[in-house]
């Protein structure tokens, strides 16, 4: 089992003819994902790597039965492209694009919420259910099939953690990067809730970072609603206050959002927090009683 995507997911790639879109379409297909269609306005009728290209998501969905899209469209048009997807009847929209204006992300969030469509991102690495499907830009080869769910605000740090899990012989049910922007669709809590329900997941790794209070809210949710063990990691213990660490959301402001606060909240919820990514497999084994 896994969450949000599996071997039945039928994927449409928006921005399939672009540099990133075409490269990652190839990588997703190679991983075994069912990429059934692509969209680039004005390039309908062409094919890319054997995948038919359409002008609109509506056409792509009705012609190929896609039920999820992944968006590689440039930042200026990404929110509109994602809204088009949400209005076309897909269940999941994953926005990889970095640099989407915040007001556009707000509009996108409201529209997907209204339509009941799951939004992941923007500015996220996507998600992967190892051995089943990959809707994202993560290197597929480091992932192994298993029963640990991973959720993270970061991209490459997630790969680092997954690589540690692989070295430690721990496979994953689904690995999901929710993104580092101030306005994102799927949150820690949504994901924790899904992992709690998923029969194929026995434990969860939560990877947070400084800024905001999402980790504190996640800790509260874990304390009140989760029976499965969770192991945490927080990036940015050494980050100085008031300086934005790359991600728009990664800033300690007004004394809020420090790594200490988050670690304390998680510890209080019974979540052991690793000092280093390489300690995560050991903590997982300990919590699972192996």
């Amino acid at each position, binding site marked *: 089992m896994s969450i949000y995507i599996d071997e039945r997911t039928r994927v449409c790639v928006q921005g399939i003819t672009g540099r990133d879109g075409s490269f990652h379409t190839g990588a997703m297909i190679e991983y075994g994902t069912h990429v059934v269609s692509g969209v680039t306005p004005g390039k309908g009728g062409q094919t890319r790597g054997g995948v038919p290209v359409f002008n609109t998501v509506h056409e792509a969905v009705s012609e190929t039965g896609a039920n999820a899209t992944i968006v590689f469209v440039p930042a200026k048009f990404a929110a509109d492209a994602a809204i088009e997807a949400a209005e076309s009847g897909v269940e999941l929209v994953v926005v990889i694009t970095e640099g989407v204006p915040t007001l556009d992300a707000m509009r996108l969030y409201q529209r997907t919420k209204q339509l009941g469509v799951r939004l992941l991102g923007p500015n996220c690495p996507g998600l992967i259910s190892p051995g089943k499907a990959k809707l994202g830009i993560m*290197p597929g080869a480091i992932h192994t099939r298993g029963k640990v769910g991973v959720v993270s605000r970061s*991209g*490459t740090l997630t790969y680092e953690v997954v690589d540690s899990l692989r070295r430690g012989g721990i496979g994953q049910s689904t690995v999901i990067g929710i993104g580092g922007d101030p*306005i994102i669709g799927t949150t820690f809590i949504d994901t924790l809730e899904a992992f709690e329900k998923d029969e194929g997941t026995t434990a969860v790794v939560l990877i947070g*970072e400084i800024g905001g209070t999402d980790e504190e809210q996640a800790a509260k949710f874990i304390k009140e609603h989760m029976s499965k063990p969770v192991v945490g990691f927080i990036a940015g213990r050494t980050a100085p206050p008031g300086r934005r660490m*790359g991600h728009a959301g990664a800033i300690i402001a007004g004394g809020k959002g420090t790594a200490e606060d988050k670690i304390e909240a998680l510890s209080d919820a019974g979540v052991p927090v690793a000092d280093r990514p390489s300690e995560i497999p050991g903590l997982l084994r300990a919590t699972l009683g192996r």
Partner: protein
Amino acid sequence: MKIHEYQARTILRGRGVPVPRFEVVTDPAEARRVAEEIGGMVVVKAQVHVGGRGKAGGVKLANTPEEAEQHARNILGMDIKGLTVHKVMVAHAVDIEREYYVGIVVDRATKGPVFMVSSEGGVDIESVAAETPEKIFKLPIDPVQGLTVSQAAQLAAHLDDRVEVVGQVAPVVTKLYNAFVASDASLAEINPLVVSPDGKVWAVDAKMNIDDNALFRHPEIAAMRDSADESDELRKAREMGLSFVKLDGNVGCVVNGAGLAMTTMDLIKFYGGEPANFLDIGGSSSPEKVMTAFDIITSDPNVRVILLNIFGGITRCDDVAEGLIEALEARPLSLPLVVRLTGTNETRARQILAEHGMESAQTMDEVVEKAVAMARGQA
């Protein structure tokens, strides 16, 4: 992007918010001329991108044009929290009866703009929020629907109970919201919003931060960028699309991804070292980016060793390795370099490095330990 108070005032004035007359000047004689034109009492304010200007002596009242000139002379060139004052604003000083706070920020929790108003204006709103949070009234706004007339009235009524004042504050609130949306701001605030003894409402200070991701649709705001406040390193980094923050340690870091970059810093500290910087080279890995990153880091005299930590996902390790070799051949490094390249196309990357007598560490722990030891050995 931060813009100056005078620029935010210009935007708000353009939207019809009542702003006391002002002009920005760069020399004392000009300040005197403006004070003469405005007449009466004026305030001379340093225009720099930091808070606490008043406490630092960067805000002064002047009764006469001569006094305004004198204040401008003192403030221009002044250092406020490490920033030099190059411009001052001379503005009509409004008589103050009451001071309010009105602001809008992007709220992660409600996924939309949230209004904050407080009858405790004129002071640092963060300390009000920390000490007496009940004095701040918050109202989330639906970004699709926008601010409604009744919400504007509700916010205004929270600040004052006089009908004629509420009647002036509500439109200011609406205009501030419109400016926030039209400028793609991430923060817009008026602190204080003043009621003068004659019952008039004035925006006496204004602050706006603009969403960097939206600057492409606001060339007029993008042009407001004041690079005088930006160090050479920061400007270079910004122009190359690198995200850089200078720190005080001696281990320079070049990493792809913000979360991994922070974790690299944390690990340096864990192994007993001190990071010299945060630097995220982002998704693409052109030789120019790597070269610029090295330039920025080597310009810091404290740095003893450079650590390159790349986990390839969208970034391909062989591209990074080739970029690295190209960068080093174009401009050999004066400092030792330790490398860890892993992920997409890792094998090919290791081959490329080996062909040039370099190697890559296997894990992040290994490369960080090595860098910290080298920084110590040579410190």
